[in-house]
């Protein structure tokens, strides 16, 4: 019997009872608290999405009144953006795996980490509170554009407070990760020996820290305007609605990279593990994350090309937007090159990572169309944008999230899922997803505006195709989640390193013990992905 098979106490069993979870200082337990909450909200958001697709099956009324429909798409957006996708990868996999990848026992500020989760929970309660308090959930769209958001009688104030509180949760998580990355890397691990997921979290965290306060201020300004009548955005009391749009997008565009960068980090972890070779262009991938985070601050104006922007401003925002495409394409080329001369295990996590590349390409390339001034004048605020953003967020980040879940599942629970079911769920999800969202791109080019309860008869066919896609998508999601849920309870025991990965999290047991490593993890020689069994290229 070797030392590795001796019984030990996993972090699950270190302490017992619900209180030990709610007050835990263990980054792994905090991560799981987030995971369960986030999956729950994802399912709520997805259900709202299904309702929207059902309503849009025929022109005219199918199931709900226009006012209800407007509340549904607002709540869908608020839940999916603030409660699912922004926290998704950083709060769940960042929390669980950043310390493991860095070879340390926790994040820099465990109490602050728990506090971030509580803020998340409080924010979530406010968001759901709009369902029962006041005149119902906001009907403004998740962008809360003034002056409509100042005037509507629905419960905008509470939704905005929810987003404000959730913003603080995000800021504190970012702060925690930055300090962790600077201070807690295991001895001998320089910045350039860090796994790429850590790099992408590092870039993300700076955005969270620097951009999120802007949305906090903006949301407080809406509250001041609604509650105290201070004229900031509503022209009838002396405000400027376009100022609101600027302030909103100064945060919300960088927020797109809060959603996308961690997903890119996941892909950069999964591909080398399954190709069993080193990543191609480590520095190019690492630094392009920083470049995206930096340029991403200066492109918000591309959401406002039809808001009466001056020629020079439009010119500058458009050209900067195109520049963001360059570091993004560098990543894609490097990922593909990593498959070259690999020894590839085609397994569920890799399939998700490659589907990420495919979907994200469509999302990114349609983004180029929106960045071009002339094309955007036609396509802005149409279903083209709805299709584009779902390709980036669901097809990109969503697929990476599920890829990460399948990749690290055996580490988190020490069990293995049924791969056949997982692969089937993956395949139908990929098909369903594309049937659901590709028609939206076509509808946008045909000229169907977004946030439409009803539509002209010529848009019927593609709307029905899209709705059928939503049924396939949601069925696949159910299979995917049930499969993992069953595996977590009754799955076969997984080995500590089922994929043959060499980043540090694979050196500890599954599930990890409370303090992560029993003995100091060994940094792979010659870089984080330098697989010892692969041939050297020279």
């Amino acid at each position: 019997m070797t030392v590795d098979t001796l019984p030990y106490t996993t972090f699950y069993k270190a302490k017992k009872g619900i209180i030990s979870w709610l007050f835990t200082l263990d980054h792994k337990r905090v991560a799981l608290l987030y995971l369960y909450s986030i999956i729950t909200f994802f399912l709520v958001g997805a259900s709202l999405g299904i309702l929207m697709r059902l309503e849009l099956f025929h022109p005219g009324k199918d199931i709900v009144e226009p006012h209800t429909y407007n509340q549904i798409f607002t709540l869908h957006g608020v839940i999916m953006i603030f409660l699912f996708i922004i926290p998704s990868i950083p709060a769940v996999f960042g929390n669980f795996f950043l310390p493991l990848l860095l070879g340390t026992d926790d994040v820099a500020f465990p109490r602050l980490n728990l506090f971030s989760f509580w803020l998340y929970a409080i924010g979530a309660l406010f968001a759901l509170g709009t369902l029962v308090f006041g005149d119902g959930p906001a009907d403004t769209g998740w962008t809360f554009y003034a002056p409509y958001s100042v005037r509507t009688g629905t419960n905008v104030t509470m939704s905005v407070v929810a987003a404000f509180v959730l913003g603080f949760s995000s800021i504190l998580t970012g702060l925690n990760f930055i300090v962790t990355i600077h201070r807690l890397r295991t001895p001998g691990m320089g910045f350039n020996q860090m796994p790429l997921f850590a790099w992408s979290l590092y870039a993300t965290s700076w955005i969270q820290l620097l951009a999120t306060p802007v949305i906090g201020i903006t949301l407080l300004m809406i509250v001041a305007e609604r509650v105290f009548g201070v004229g900031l955005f509503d022209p009838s009391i002396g405000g400027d609605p376009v100022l609101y749009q600027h302030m909103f997008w100064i945060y919300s565009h960088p927020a797109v990279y809060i959603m996308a960068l961690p997903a890119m980090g996941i892909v950069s972890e999964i591909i080398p593990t399954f190709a069993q070779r080193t990543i191609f262009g480590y520095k190019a991938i690492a630094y392009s994350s920083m470049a995206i985070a930096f340029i991403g601050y200066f492109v918000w104006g591309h959401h406002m090309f039809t808001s009466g922007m001056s020629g020079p401003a439009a010119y500058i925002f458009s050209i900067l937007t195109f520049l963001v495409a360059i570091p993004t394409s560098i990543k894609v080329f490097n990922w593909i090159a990593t498959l070259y001369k690999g020894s590839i295990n085609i397994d569920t996590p890799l399939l998700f990572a490659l589907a990420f590349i495919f979907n994200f390409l469509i999302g990114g390339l349609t983004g180029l169309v929106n960045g071009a001034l002339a094309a955007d004048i036609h396509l802005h605020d149409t279903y083209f944008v709805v299709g584009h953003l779902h390709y980036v967020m669901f097809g990109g980040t969503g697929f990476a999230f599920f890829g990460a879940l399948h990749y690290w599942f055996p580490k988190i629970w020490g069990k293995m899922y049924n791969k056949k079911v997982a692969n089937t769920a993956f395949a139908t999800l990929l098909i369903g997803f594309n049937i659901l969202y590709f028609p939206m791109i076509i509808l946008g080019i045909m000229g169907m505006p977004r946030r439409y309860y009803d539509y002209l008869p010529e848009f019927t066919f593609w709307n029905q195709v899209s709705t059928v896609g939503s049924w396939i998508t949601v069925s696949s999601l159910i299979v995917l989640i049930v499969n993992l849920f069953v595996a977590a309870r009754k799955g076969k025991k997984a080995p500590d390193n089922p994929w043959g990965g060499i980043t540090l999290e694979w050196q500890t047991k599954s599930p990890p013990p409370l303090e992560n490593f029993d003995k100091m993890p060994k940094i792979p020689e010659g870089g984080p992905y330098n697989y010892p069994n692969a041939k050297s290229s020279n």
Partner: protein
Amino acid sequence: MYASNFVEGVDFSLYFILAISVFFLVGITAVMIYFLFRYSKKRNPVATNIEGSWTLEIIWTVVPTILVLLMFWYGWVGYRPMLTAPDDAMEIQAVGQMWKWTFNYDNGKSSDTLVIPIDKPIKLNLVSKDVLHSLYIPAFRLKQDVVPGKDFSMWFIGQKLGRYDILCAEYCGQLHSYMLSSVTVVENDKFNTWLAEKQDNSNEHPGLTLMKKNACFSCHTTDGSRLVGPSFKGVVGRSETIIVDGKEKTITVDADFIKHKLQNPLSSNVKGFQSGLMPKLPLSDDEISHIIDYVSTIK
């Protein structure tokens, strides 16, 4: 012939990018799938650690840079002419309000739909009476936000006879998707005849004219059915539960109540309807009495 003078520039920018995108999407996906099989564990049991190649990094930085700069350029070229209308453009005021478009011509003519002469530059001066709207003509590949308090405008030339949809593209509340109108491009002499046709309101109740002008019927029906606000049918003398400062109160609707409501639209709200939507209209006392007079006739 294109429907407007901007179609060519917009479509070129759109399809130029789409063509390059399809090329890269198909190419990258094909290479990815090829590698997946060529270098599968079975075919290639031992991997090779290739750390990277600066030559390749430079190639796949420079090539995309050139391509995106081209994309940017065609976007700009298609967009630049939209910025300034020619001096000889015919000016028409386009008014957006929840949930109705109104087009006011220089000779005082006012219409729910836009009628324009072919091959003549048209400049729409955009006015919003309440929240954000966006005037969108898909066939012309053109949209511009209509922002309260801002003097925005848009211009175009209708180049093909016909009738095209006008949609609202910026979310503006409950009936956003019903804020529809159309633009009809007609021959020049037909346009002049249409423009000169007098609108005959003399047989119409002045209250009704005012209410049409102020889009009252976007939210309130006259047949008792429910829309955004309560119906006008039999409203005078009806007993309603209203909410004032969060407290419920039952009142009988009379002339004084309607006048107060028109002057202070947000002071109260009929129970069961969404609050905060009724706009404050700049109406004189005389106009208000015309409206009350007309509303009393809707039985």
